[in-house]
């Protein structure tokens, strides 16, 4: 198993750092899946993290100048690692002005994701910063846990098909509702069957709702740094809120389960 990638463009480095920082605000640890074309940051919904799950897909070619990997074996040409995104975020944060940043899988005292940056200096020799981030290699037999989540059959809720969305909070003393109008209801992309038949039959005025832990929602909204070109929210009535940030070269999906 080998992996080596190199970033030379400052804008790419900046964007990559922002994505990772966004993820680091959502979870303490996640899975990094490396394939020949993509990087995925995956978080499985588990009771321990409140049932939220996350799927972030990046197209490697949009970030890396050089990217080489050899997976577990030719049939399973992937690498799965468990990593703390906060470490990656920290490592990248201080090298934003680097001339070159290399990311590679190494074995030091344990398997590590090593980030090496060459920083510009006034002297003839560059300053080299090396960060060794310990990772756990996920064995092949567990890979099935980290597949792209199937998008649930959603209704558009507390939002409706007329482009209206309400965000409501209620406490014993007060209830506050914010009304959004004129939002788009984009058809779901690869769409054919997924939601279209059921949503067509739905009354455009009918609201569907999901009640979620506000801290999770806040964590997502406050932590994001990717400045997406598009943001979407899908809701399955009383089940889950599905938030999507879209950018030219990456997508980030976050699922928050509804509380009873």
């Amino acid at each position, binding site marked *: 198993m080998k992996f080596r990638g190199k970033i030379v463009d400052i804008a790419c480095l900046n964007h990559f750092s922002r994505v990772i920082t966004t993820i680091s605000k959502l979870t303490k640890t996640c899975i990094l899946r490396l394939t020949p074309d993509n990087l995925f940051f995956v978080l499985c919904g588990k009771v321990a993290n409140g049932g939220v799950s996350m799927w972030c897909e990046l197209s490697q070619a949009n970030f890396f100048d050089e990217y080489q990997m050899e997976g577990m074996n030719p049939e399973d040409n992937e690498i799965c690692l468990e990593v703390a995104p906060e470490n990656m975020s920290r490592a990248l944060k201080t090298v934003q002005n680097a001339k070159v940043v290399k990311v590679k899988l190494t074995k030091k005292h344990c398997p590590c994701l090593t980030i090496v940056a060459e920083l510009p200096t*006034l002297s003839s020799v560059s*300053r080299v*910063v090396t960060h060794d981030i310990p990772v756990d290699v996920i064995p092949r037999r567990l890979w099935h846990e980290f597949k792209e989540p199937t998008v649930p059959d959603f209704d558009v809720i507390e939002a409706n098909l007329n482009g209206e969305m309400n965000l409501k909070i209620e406490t014993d003393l007060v209830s506050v509702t914010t009304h959004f109008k004129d939002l788009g209801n984009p058809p779901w992309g690869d769409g054919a069957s997924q939601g279209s038949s059921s949503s067509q039959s739905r009354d455009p005025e009918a609201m569907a709702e999901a009640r979620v832990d506000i801290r999770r929602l806040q964590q997502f909204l406050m932590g994001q740094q990717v400045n997406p070109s598009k943001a979407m929210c899908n809701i399955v009535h009383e089940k889950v809120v599905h938030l999507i940030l879209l950018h030219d070269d990456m997508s980030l999906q976050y699922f928050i389960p509804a509380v009873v």
Partner: protein
Amino acid sequence: MDCVVTGGNVKVLAKAVHSLSRIGDDLYVEPQKDGLALRSVNSSRSAYACFLFAPLFFSRYTIPSSYAFRCKMAIKSVQAVFRSLVSLEKTVEKCRIELDDQKNRLTFTLHCKHGLLKTHNLSFQDSESLQAVFDKDSCGNVFRAQPRLLVDTVVHFPPSLEEVTVSVSDDRMWVRNHVEDEAEQSKAMLTELCLAADEFDHFAVQAQNRITFCLKELRSLLVFAESTGLPISMYFDEPGSPVVLSVTDSVLEGNFVLATLSDDPNHCKDNNRRTCTQPPPPPDDFMNDDMDSYLIAMDTSIAPVPSTTGPSTSPLVASTCSKQPAAVSHRSRKRNEEEKGKEGDRTADLNRPPDKKFCSLFFGSVLPPSPQMSTQPITHQNVLASDSEDDTCME
């Protein structure tokens, strides 16, 4: 005692106080003939800092002539005088420090714009003289750099990081975070920065040593140096001997003396597995590494130069005051207990570095060092070889 500081020097004085406040809780004030000494030490005696302001730093410098006055006071009270640095710069024209002998008080008066006077009466306690014994001129490894270089170096390490390891070769310096716990080693992120000799104003290496010390105290000095723009000099020898960091100009001198981790295996039992005794790695062939060389093998390395200081066998005296030997030995004993990590003695002092690990304390006694100190045996080096079956073991 009657001293007056004017203009921009008020801010320099304030910065020095803030810097010292990050070392210890008490400020030791001693007006001397050669200038006003402000000192602080941490509770485990592993970090000491002293700023000496020459008489020329002041527009008036009058000290008691008949007796040697020295005192200590809570540093927080002095910080309160110089609280807002921004407003200090804008509004304070001069600062006067006077001794009120009868009431055991030092009066700090800030003369501000528009005739405003802010007077702070701070009580003090008598104290013994606080003097660390160190001789930076005898140190083999000497470096000097602009503060920006060190600031840019420490920025790569998280604010919570306690200790750093600095290693040097003839033309390189490596700064690495130090991970003490074995348990932490597999979880902690390791960061290493490599600086070339020509980034320094002065780079002289006599022995290719590696030392580990508390980063927090270095940061305290950087706070001062960065604002004054003074270059920082660094002096050290073998591990176990303190590292001295100083800033000087014509009217002031600041010295931070920090204990370093000793390589003595008797005191660092749990650290045998660490790579602390490796010499620094060869320069990273950053531009040339190819796919096959991505695996970093652990070197077997030559053992370091044996440490000649046997620090804790004969505890060093914490004070040069000759009047209180009983108190002194009590303090030494307490320090030893702290070294062993005895929980009961610990106060909840969050400013303290992990004192039990700093085996070497540097306060000298007035007596010459004990002749019993003998050369330590060469430290045993555990060999950590890379796993040659890497690919399969990754599964």
